[in-house]
């Protein structure tokens, strides 16, 4: 089952959680400092408008995989004060081919992940408490799934559909408190991963990012220092944790089966892309010089799509065996939209489809932006799919 299909099953448990959660109050034209503590206010082109509480309802029918129009997207943008300092973030949310993108003001310590099943997981911390909310993009409603004193730095949907996985820090010392699983049924969270031990190779941890393997069975916890990264991989069925701390393996891009796809040891792009077999430890090259890259699962199997430094203006598609499958043109001004942690943005794409966008992030207009079917290179400019 694909990750996206699993996410579609999020409906019932999330909606159940929504029923017990603190719901979002009616809109107020809040100042930016309100930032999703208490009532949430969204802002549309016409001005502030309400982000209503989600109401329990039967699980909506899953969208057909091939449907792109209406797919949710988001991006996080900084909000600066008069002196140019970061004063918060602005979450911009929309749907492909649909008008009416809206914004939510967030604090400095905030994040978003997804979209999955048309929903975006939004975290926000006000310095005293962290709040997790699920936004249903299509319904323009939000459900608070957690609010408490723990500092939740990152969180992603659990593809099982029954919970959230979150990374926590100690609020005062910012020490790593590990990765936790939070069921949506209100039961207590449990720790999945211990805090990362100090590591001289990566130094102080700048960023910890969570993602799932393509089959949703393994959690990838990426920890990056100022320059280098390591990855811990938790097998949810066995509970076994594997740490990939290898100078040949840099920032993780994706995990398919036992193959961890990552940039090589270089701390900048272009960089080689490698695949490490988690069973054998063997590392092999998939691409010599890549820019932005993403792992996708297609009907023909898993592939890596990357900006090809050697064939400028092109994307290259290779299988996990390193076999070159095809080259796709990359129009001037467009770049591949990578995974959400790198893009600070996300689009819920049908399987086998990649997104290209100016600045490699979806924007309010989604123009210029292009969606490309990996299998045949067919392109569908977003502007042409507006309904």
């Amino acid at each position: 089952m694909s990750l996206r299909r699993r996410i579609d099953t999020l409906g019932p448990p999330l909606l159940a959680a929504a029923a017990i959660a603190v719901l979002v109050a009616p809109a107020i034209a809040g100042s930016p400092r309100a930032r999703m503590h208490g009532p949430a206010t969204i802002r549309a082109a016409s001005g502030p408008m309400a982000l209503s509480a989600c109401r329990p309802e039967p699980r909506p029918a899953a969208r057909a995989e091939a449907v792109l129009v209406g797919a949710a997207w988001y991006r996080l943008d900084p909000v600066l004060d008069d002196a140019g300092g970061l004063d918060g973030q602005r979450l911009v949310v929309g749907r492909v081919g649909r008008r009416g993108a809206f914004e939510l003001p967030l604090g400095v310590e905030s994040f978003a992940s997804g979209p999955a099943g048309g929903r975006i997981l939004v975290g926000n911390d006000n310095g005293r408490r962290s709040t997790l909310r699920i936004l249903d993009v299509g319904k323009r409603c939000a459900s608070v799934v957690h609010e408490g004193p723990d500092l939740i730095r990152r969180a992603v949907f659990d593809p099982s559909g029954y919970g959230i996985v979150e990374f926590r820090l100690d609020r005062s010392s910012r020490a790593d408190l590990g990765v936790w699983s939070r069921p949506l049924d209100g039961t207590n969270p449990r720790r999945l991963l211990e805090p990362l031990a100090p590591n001289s190779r990566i130094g102080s941890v700048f960023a910890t990012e969570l993602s799932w393997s393509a089959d949703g069975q393994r959690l990838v916890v990426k920890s990056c220092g100022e320059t280098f990264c390591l990855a811990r991989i938790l097998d949810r069925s066995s509970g076994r944790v594997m740490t990939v701390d290898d100078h040949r393996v840099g920032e993780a891009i994706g995990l398919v089966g036992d193959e961890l796809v990552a940039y090589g040891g270089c701390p900048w792009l272009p960089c080689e892309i490698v695949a490490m077999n988690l069973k054998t430890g063997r590392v092999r090259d998939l691409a010599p010089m890549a820019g932005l890259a993403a792992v996708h699962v297609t009907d023909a199997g898993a592939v890596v799509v990357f900006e090809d430094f050697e064939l400028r203006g092109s994307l290259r598609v290779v299988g996990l065996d390193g076999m070159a499958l095809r080259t796709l043109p990359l129009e001037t001004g467009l770049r591949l939209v990578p995974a959400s942690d790198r893009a600070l943005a996300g689009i819920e794409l049908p399987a086998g489809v990649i997104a290209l966008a100016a600045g490699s992030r979806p924007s309010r207009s989604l123009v210029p932006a292009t969606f490309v079917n990996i299998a045949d290179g067919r392109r569908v400019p977003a502007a042409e799919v507006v309904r």
Partner: protein
Amino acid sequence: MTTRVAFRRAAAAIVAASLALQSVSLVVAHSPDPPISWPLFEADDVLQFRWKEGEVPPLKMRDAVVAAAADAAASVASRAPTIAYASGGASTVEYGPNVFCGVNGLACADGWHAPDHFHVAFRTHGHQFDWGRLWWCQLQSTITNGCYDVENVALDEFGHVLGLGHHVNYGDESDYLDAVVQTFSRARPKAGWNADKYGRCDVAKLQLRYDMVNSARKYSTCLDLATALSLAASDTSIRIGDTVTFTATVKVADSAGYERLRANAVSERKVVLERRLPGSVSWTTVATMPASTLASGTYQINVSPTVSYEWRGYFLKPADEGLRASSSAPFVVTVSGCASQPCPQISVESTQQEAER
């Protein structure tokens, strides 16, 4: 990471090779910085940058970035390009979250489009990392410990633009100050937090990649370049009283690993002329050879020997640069008879100064 130029296969091949070298960590600690993976800009080029529209850094950051560009120009000690602000510059410096920086790092550089243009991006003041918030010293109303110096970090990023990878330090980082381009930046007040000129191991790699400005400039002490000294005589069979002109030529050794420095002429250093009796072991210094105007890296002296000697040139290792000593192959100048009576003693005639004995 971001911008990048028209593809050139040859350049990419070179880059790929350097990347391969780097990725297997062949770089020895305290050696010149490793290369970065994108193509080089042209030597002596002027890389003009502008502030990216919509992502313009705050004024104090802009001032610090411009200062860093001047720092770079003043300290590259090579033919590395000059970086300078110009409102219409092809390259950009930006401020804010940017995808090409990835999830970590204080700032990032992108030379994908070298040799056309580059991008540098700085995280926002107050960006939240796992370890805490990023504060740029220049943007603080009261500078606090733990802040990062924009000028220093910009110098690091410009170093990347120019082709430098992160310096490989000793395990105890005792050589940290030998490079600005570092894997781990230092916050105030740790030593090096506000270094405002390239360190000797940054300079060493810039010299290797872009060449020296001229043959008289000093090679970084982070280098350890072999030199080759050749010595020629105007005549190797003379009569007493005749004058022989010895010409020494000093070059950096012709080694592929020396990149653009290979076979460079080495001027305005100290080269001495030595002699010994055939069959003896020790050498005696006859004179320092003055620089010649014949060509770069040449030194010349006139000598009137009265006895047959073996002669060689000796290039003394300079105390303040990364060149090794070298000596020429010895050869004999045979002296016979006298052209006049009484036979003159050995004499040295300098073309520029009185020679040392």
